[in-house]
Protein backbone atom coordinates (compact mmCIF):
# COMPACT_ATOMS: atom_id res chain seq x y z
CA UNK A 1 0.00 0.00 0.00
CA UNK A 2 1.45 3.44 -0.90
CA UNK A 3 2.66 5.35 2.20
CA UNK A 4 0.26 8.27 1.57
CA UNK A 5 -2.79 5.98 1.39
CA UNK A 6 -1.62 4.12 4.49
CA UNK A 7 -1.19 7.38 6.39
CA UNK A 8 -4.70 8.55 5.39
CA UNK A 9 -6.23 5.25 6.46
CA UNK A 10 -4.40 5.38 9.80
CA UNK A 11 -5.66 8.94 10.44
CA UNK A 12 -9.23 7.90 9.59
CA UNK A 13 -9.05 4.87 11.85
CA UNK A 14 -7.52 6.93 14.70
CA UNK A 15 -10.41 9.43 14.41
CA UNK A 16 -12.85 6.51 14.71
CA UNK A 17 -10.96 5.24 17.79
CA UNK A 18 -11.26 8.70 19.32
CA UNK A 19 -15.02 8.75 18.66
CA UNK A 20 -15.37 5.29 20.24
CA UNK A 21 -13.57 6.50 23.37
CA UNK A 22 -16.23 9.19 23.75
CA UNK A 23 -18.99 6.59 23.63
CA UNK A 24 -20.80 6.30 26.94
CA UNK A 25 -20.53 2.48 26.79
CA UNK A 26 -16.72 2.72 26.89
CA UNK A 27 -16.62 5.51 29.50
CA UNK A 28 -18.97 3.68 31.84
CA UNK A 29 -17.12 0.37 31.44
CA UNK A 30 -13.77 1.95 32.27
CA UNK A 31 -15.28 3.87 35.21
CA UNK A 32 -16.68 0.65 36.68
CA UNK A 33 -13.58 -1.51 36.11
CA UNK A 34 -11.37 1.27 37.48
CA UNK A 35 -13.64 1.53 40.52
CA UNK A 36 -13.35 -2.21 41.09
CA UNK A 37 -9.54 -1.98 40.90
CA UNK A 38 -9.31 -4.21 37.83
CA UNK A 39 -8.07 -1.71 35.27
CA UNK A 40 -6.17 1.59 35.28
CA UNK A 41 -6.25 4.33 32.67
CA UNK A 42 -4.66 7.69 31.94
CA UNK A 43 -7.96 9.01 30.57
CA UNK A 44 -9.84 11.51 32.73
CA UNK A 45 -12.55 9.02 33.66
CA UNK A 46 -13.61 9.01 37.30
CA UNK A 47 -13.82 5.61 38.97
CA UNK A 48 -17.23 4.52 40.17
CA UNK A 49 -18.11 1.83 42.66
CA UNK A 50 -21.87 2.01 42.56
CA UNK A 51 -22.85 2.26 38.89
CA UNK A 52 -24.45 -0.69 37.14
CA UNK A 53 -23.15 -1.76 33.80
CA UNK A 54 -24.89 -3.54 30.92
CA UNK A 55 -22.82 -6.60 30.09
CA UNK A 56 -23.35 -5.99 26.37
CA UNK A 57 -21.93 -2.47 26.70
CA UNK A 58 -18.81 -3.84 28.39
CA UNK A 59 -18.41 -6.43 25.63
CA UNK A 60 -18.82 -3.73 22.97
CA UNK A 61 -16.14 -1.58 24.66
CA UNK A 62 -13.79 -4.57 24.88
CA UNK A 63 -14.31 -5.61 21.27
CA UNK A 64 -14.18 -2.10 19.82
CA UNK A 65 -11.82 -0.06 21.97
CA UNK A 66 -9.84 -1.88 24.63
CA UNK A 67 -9.41 -5.69 24.65
CA UNK A 68 -7.97 -5.48 28.19
CA UNK A 69 -11.61 -4.96 29.26
CA UNK A 70 -12.39 -8.49 28.04
CA UNK A 71 -9.36 -9.83 29.90
CA UNK A 72 -10.75 -8.72 33.28
CA UNK A 73 -14.47 -9.02 32.47
CA UNK A 74 -14.93 -12.61 33.74
CA UNK A 75 -13.21 -11.60 37.01
CA UNK A 76 -15.59 -8.64 37.32
CA UNK A 77 -18.64 -10.84 36.62
CA UNK A 78 -17.54 -13.43 39.18
CA UNK A 79 -16.63 -10.98 41.94
CA UNK A 80 -19.28 -8.32 41.36
CA UNK A 81 -22.27 -9.95 39.64
CA UNK A 82 -24.70 -7.36 41.01
CA UNK A 83 -22.82 -4.64 39.10
CA UNK A 84 -23.95 -6.07 35.76
CA UNK A 85 -27.25 -5.74 33.97
CA UNK A 86 -28.45 -8.33 31.46
CA UNK A 87 -26.11 -11.05 32.72
CA UNK A 88 -28.73 -13.56 31.63
CA UNK A 89 -28.14 -12.39 28.05
CA UNK A 90 -24.38 -12.69 28.01
CA UNK A 91 -22.94 -14.51 24.97
CA UNK A 92 -22.79 -18.31 25.50
CA UNK A 93 -19.01 -18.38 24.96
CA UNK A 94 -18.46 -15.83 27.75
CA UNK A 95 -20.89 -17.69 30.00
CA UNK A 96 -18.87 -20.85 29.39
CA UNK A 97 -15.62 -19.07 30.35
CA UNK A 98 -17.20 -17.77 33.57
CA UNK A 99 -18.51 -21.24 34.45
CA UNK A 100 -15.11 -22.86 33.81
CA UNK A 101 -13.32 -20.30 35.99
CA UNK A 102 -15.92 -20.67 38.74
CA UNK A 103 -15.40 -24.44 38.65
CA UNK A 104 -11.65 -23.78 39.01
CA UNK A 105 -10.82 -25.53 35.72
CA UNK A 106 -7.24 -25.18 34.50
CA UNK A 107 -8.18 -25.06 30.82
CA UNK A 108 -10.99 -23.48 28.88
CA UNK A 109 -11.81 -21.73 25.65
CA UNK A 110 -10.57 -18.29 24.65
CA UNK A 111 -13.06 -15.43 24.41
CA UNK A 112 -12.71 -12.89 21.57
CA UNK A 113 -9.03 -13.83 21.20
CA UNK A 114 -8.26 -13.45 24.91
CA UNK A 115 -6.62 -16.61 26.27
CA UNK A 116 -8.57 -18.45 28.99
CA UNK A 117 -5.47 -18.50 31.21
CA UNK A 118 -5.34 -14.68 31.23
CA UNK A 119 -9.02 -14.34 32.24
CA UNK A 120 -8.64 -17.04 34.88
CA UNK A 121 -5.54 -15.31 36.21
CA UNK A 122 -7.42 -12.08 36.99
CA UNK A 123 -10.30 -13.95 38.63
CA UNK A 124 -7.75 -15.60 40.93
CA UNK A 125 -5.86 -12.43 41.81
CA UNK A 126 -6.40 -10.77 45.17
CA UNK A 127 -8.01 -7.37 44.74
CA UNK A 128 -7.10 -4.23 46.64
CA UNK A 129 -10.33 -4.26 48.69
CA UNK A 130 -9.13 -7.49 50.42
CA UNK A 131 -12.78 -8.50 50.83
CA UNK A 132 -12.97 -10.03 47.38
CA UNK A 133 -11.45 -13.47 47.49
CA UNK A 134 -9.70 -15.07 44.51
CA UNK A 135 -12.10 -17.54 42.88
CA UNK A 136 -9.79 -20.54 43.48
CA UNK A 137 -9.88 -19.93 47.25
CA UNK A 138 -13.67 -19.73 47.46
CA UNK A 139 -15.21 -22.62 49.38
CA UNK A 140 -17.72 -24.91 47.70
CA UNK A 141 -20.33 -27.01 49.44
CA UNK A 142 -19.87 -30.77 49.20
CA UNK A 143 -21.67 -33.57 51.06
CA UNK A 144 -19.85 -36.71 52.22
CA UNK A 145 -21.02 -39.70 54.21
CA UNK A 146 -18.30 -40.46 56.81
CA UNK A 147 -17.79 -43.34 59.23
CA UNK A 148 -18.72 -42.58 62.87
CA UNK A 149 -15.09 -43.01 64.06
CA UNK A 150 -13.92 -40.45 61.46
CA UNK A 151 -16.61 -38.01 62.61
CA UNK A 152 -15.57 -38.52 66.27
CA UNK A 153 -11.91 -37.98 65.37
CA UNK A 154 -12.73 -34.72 63.55
CA UNK A 155 -14.72 -33.48 66.55
CA UNK A 156 -11.82 -34.35 68.93
CA UNK A 157 -9.29 -32.51 66.73
CA UNK A 158 -11.43 -29.35 66.85
CA UNK A 159 -12.06 -29.73 70.59
CA UNK A 160 -8.32 -30.06 71.22
CA UNK A 161 -7.75 -26.85 69.27
CA UNK A 162 -5.61 -28.59 66.63
CA UNK A 163 -7.88 -27.13 63.94
CA UNK A 164 -10.36 -24.22 64.09
CA UNK A 165 -13.08 -26.34 62.43
CA UNK A 166 -13.71 -29.75 60.89
CA UNK A 167 -13.34 -28.44 57.32
CA UNK A 168 -9.80 -27.24 58.09
CA UNK A 169 -8.93 -30.69 59.50
CA UNK A 170 -10.17 -32.40 56.31
CA UNK A 171 -8.33 -29.87 54.10
CA UNK A 172 -5.09 -30.43 56.06
CA UNK A 173 -5.44 -34.20 55.58
CA UNK A 174 -6.03 -33.73 51.83
CA UNK A 175 -2.97 -31.46 51.56
CA UNK A 176 -0.86 -34.30 52.96
CA UNK A 177 -1.97 -36.75 50.23
Amino acid at each position, binding site marked *: *MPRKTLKDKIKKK*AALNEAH*RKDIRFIKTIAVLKGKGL*LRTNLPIAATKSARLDINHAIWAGRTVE*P*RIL*EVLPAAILHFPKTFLNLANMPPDLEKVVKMIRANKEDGEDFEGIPFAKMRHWANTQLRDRRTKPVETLKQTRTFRLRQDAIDKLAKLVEAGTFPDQTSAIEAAIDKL
Partner: protein
Amino acid sequence: MKDILIQIFTELNDRITQENLERAKDGRIKIAAFEVKILGQATLLANDLIAKILPLQMTNDLDAVFEANEYFATHLLRTEILPKFNLILDPDSEKVWIPAGSKFEVILNLHHLKVKILDPESALVSKAIKAREKNKVLIIDALASELFPNLAERIEKAGGDLDYFLKD
Protein backbone atom coordinates in the same frame (compact mmCIF):
# COMPACT_ATOMS: atom_id res chain seq x y z
CA MET B 1 2.86 5.51 36.71
CA LYS B 2 6.39 6.91 36.93
CA ASP B 3 5.63 8.14 40.46
CA ILE B 4 4.33 4.71 41.41
CA LEU B 5 7.44 2.98 40.00
CA ILE B 6 9.66 5.39 41.91
CA GLN B 7 7.78 4.73 45.16
CA ILE B 8 7.91 0.95 44.64
CA PHE B 9 11.61 0.75 43.91
CA THR B 10 12.62 3.32 46.52
CA GLU B 11 10.86 1.19 49.13
CA LEU B 12 12.60 -1.90 47.76
CA ASN B 13 15.98 -0.13 47.97
CA ASP B 14 15.29 0.87 51.61
CA ARG B 15 14.31 -2.67 52.53
CA ILE B 16 17.51 -4.01 50.95
CA THR B 17 19.51 -1.52 53.05
CA GLN B 18 17.86 -2.93 56.21
CA GLU B 19 18.37 -6.52 55.04
CA ASN B 20 22.05 -5.90 54.30
CA LEU B 21 22.55 -4.45 57.79
CA GLU B 22 21.04 -7.62 59.27
CA ARG B 23 23.18 -9.78 57.03
CA ALA B 24 26.34 -7.84 57.99
CA LYS B 25 25.57 -8.49 61.68
CA ASP B 26 25.18 -12.22 61.02
CA GLY B 27 28.22 -12.39 58.74
CA ARG B 28 26.07 -13.38 55.74
CA ILE B 29 26.68 -12.33 52.11
CA LYS B 30 25.07 -8.98 51.32
CA ILE B 31 22.67 -8.45 48.41
CA ALA B 32 24.68 -7.00 45.54
CA ALA B 33 23.44 -4.03 43.53
CA PHE B 34 21.33 -5.00 40.51
CA GLU B 35 19.36 -3.59 37.61
CA VAL B 36 15.62 -3.85 36.87
CA LYS B 37 14.17 -3.37 33.40
CA ILE B 38 10.53 -2.32 33.16
CA LEU B 39 8.73 -3.52 30.04
CA GLY B 40 5.17 -3.60 28.71
CA GLN B 41 2.35 -1.11 29.19
CA ALA B 42 3.97 0.43 32.29
CA THR B 43 6.80 1.82 30.14
CA LEU B 44 4.28 3.81 28.09
CA LEU B 45 2.41 5.07 31.14
CA ALA B 46 5.69 5.98 32.85
CA ASN B 47 6.73 8.17 29.94
CA ASP B 48 5.27 11.62 30.65
CA LEU B 49 5.06 12.74 27.02
CA ILE B 50 3.51 9.51 25.75
CA ALA B 51 1.06 9.27 28.63
CA LYS B 52 -0.14 12.79 27.84
CA ILE B 53 -0.85 11.98 24.21
CA LEU B 54 -1.78 8.31 23.93
CA PRO B 55 -4.89 6.97 25.67
CA LEU B 56 -3.68 3.97 27.68
CA GLN B 57 -5.30 1.29 29.76
CA MET B 58 -3.40 -1.20 31.89
CA THR B 59 -4.26 -4.32 33.86
CA ASN B 60 -2.58 -4.71 37.25
CA ASP B 61 0.47 -6.62 36.11
CA LEU B 62 3.94 -5.16 36.01
CA ASP B 63 6.47 -6.55 33.55
CA ALA B 64 9.87 -6.31 35.20
CA VAL B 65 13.03 -8.22 34.40
CA PHE B 66 15.73 -8.51 37.04
CA GLU B 67 19.33 -8.51 35.92
CA ALA B 68 20.28 -10.91 38.69
CA ASN B 69 18.01 -13.69 39.95
CA GLU B 70 17.51 -11.80 43.19
CA TYR B 71 15.11 -13.89 45.30
CA PHE B 72 14.94 -11.51 48.26
CA ALA B 73 13.96 -8.56 46.05
CA THR B 74 11.45 -10.36 43.84
CA HIS B 75 9.85 -12.10 46.83
CA LEU B 76 9.52 -8.82 48.70
CA LEU B 77 8.04 -7.12 45.65
CA ARG B 78 5.53 -9.94 45.08
CA THR B 79 4.40 -10.40 48.63
CA GLU B 80 4.65 -6.98 50.26
CA ILE B 81 5.45 -4.00 48.08
CA LEU B 82 3.46 -4.47 44.86
CA PRO B 83 0.17 -5.45 46.59
CA LYS B 84 0.20 -2.02 48.30
CA PHE B 85 -0.06 -0.51 44.82
CA ASN B 86 -2.59 -3.09 43.60
CA LEU B 87 0.02 -4.53 41.25
CA ILE B 88 1.42 -8.00 40.65
CA LEU B 89 4.70 -9.02 39.08
CA ASP B 90 3.97 -10.71 35.75
CA PRO B 91 5.57 -14.17 35.93
CA ASP B 92 6.00 -14.07 32.14
CA SER B 93 8.02 -10.84 32.15
CA GLU B 94 11.11 -12.71 30.89
CA LYS B 95 9.13 -13.72 27.79
CA VAL B 96 8.52 -10.12 26.65
CA TRP B 97 10.23 -9.66 23.31
CA ILE B 98 12.66 -6.73 23.15
CA PRO B 99 13.13 -5.64 19.51
CA ALA B 100 16.51 -4.88 17.97
CA GLY B 101 17.51 -1.25 18.40
CA SER B 102 15.74 -0.87 21.77
CA LYS B 103 17.00 1.67 24.26
CA PHE B 104 16.48 1.94 28.00
CA GLU B 105 16.10 5.13 30.01
CA VAL B 106 17.23 5.18 33.64
CA ILE B 107 14.39 6.53 35.80
CA LEU B 108 15.91 5.69 39.16
CA ASN B 109 19.50 5.14 40.24
CA LEU B 110 19.75 4.17 43.90
CA HIS B 111 22.42 2.54 46.04
CA HIS B 112 21.18 -1.03 45.58
CA LEU B 113 19.29 -0.86 42.33
CA LYS B 114 18.92 0.91 39.05
CA VAL B 115 15.53 1.03 37.29
CA LYS B 116 15.35 1.39 33.52
CA ILE B 117 12.33 1.63 31.25
CA LEU B 118 12.16 0.46 27.64
CA ASP B 119 11.83 3.29 25.13
CA PRO B 120 8.17 3.68 24.06
CA GLU B 121 8.71 3.11 20.35
CA SER B 122 10.37 -0.25 21.01
CA ALA B 123 7.61 -1.17 23.47
CA LEU B 124 5.08 -0.47 20.70
CA VAL B 125 7.02 -2.53 18.14
CA SER B 126 7.08 -5.41 20.62
CA LYS B 127 3.30 -5.12 21.13
CA ALA B 128 2.60 -4.87 17.39
CA ILE B 129 4.48 -8.10 16.76
CA LYS B 130 3.81 -10.25 19.82
CA ALA B 131 0.37 -9.08 21.02
CA ARG B 132 -1.24 -7.40 18.05
CA GLU B 133 -4.85 -8.46 18.87
CA LYS B 134 -4.71 -6.70 22.23
CA ASN B 135 -3.02 -3.60 20.86
CA LYS B 136 -4.83 -2.93 17.58
CA VAL B 137 -6.25 0.42 18.72
CA LEU B 138 -3.07 1.44 20.53
CA ILE B 139 -0.87 0.87 17.47
CA ILE B 140 -3.17 2.92 15.22
CA ASP B 141 -3.27 5.74 17.79
CA ALA B 142 0.53 5.65 18.09
CA LEU B 143 1.05 5.69 14.31
CA ALA B 144 -1.43 8.56 13.91
CA SER B 145 0.19 10.58 16.71
CA GLU B 146 3.34 11.00 14.59
CA LEU B 147 5.38 10.80 17.80
CA PHE B 148 7.18 7.77 16.45
CA PRO B 149 8.57 8.49 12.98
CA ASN B 150 10.18 5.03 12.68
CA LEU B 151 7.36 2.95 14.15
CA ALA B 152 5.74 1.81 10.87
CA GLU B 153 9.11 0.91 9.38
CA ARG B 154 10.26 -0.96 12.49
CA ILE B 155 7.01 -2.95 12.68
CA GLU B 156 7.35 -4.00 9.04
CA LYS B 157 11.06 -4.76 9.46
CA ALA B 158 10.22 -7.04 12.38
CA GLY B 159 7.74 -8.95 10.21
CA GLY B 160 4.57 -7.12 11.26
CA ASP B 161 1.64 -6.46 8.95
CA LEU B 162 0.39 -2.85 9.11
CA ASP B 163 -2.78 -3.76 7.16
CA TYR B 164 -3.86 -5.94 10.09
CA PHE B 165 -4.28 -2.86 12.29
CA LEU B 166 -6.52 -1.20 9.71
CA LYS B 167 -8.98 -4.09 9.49
CA ASP B 168 -12.34 -3.81 11.27
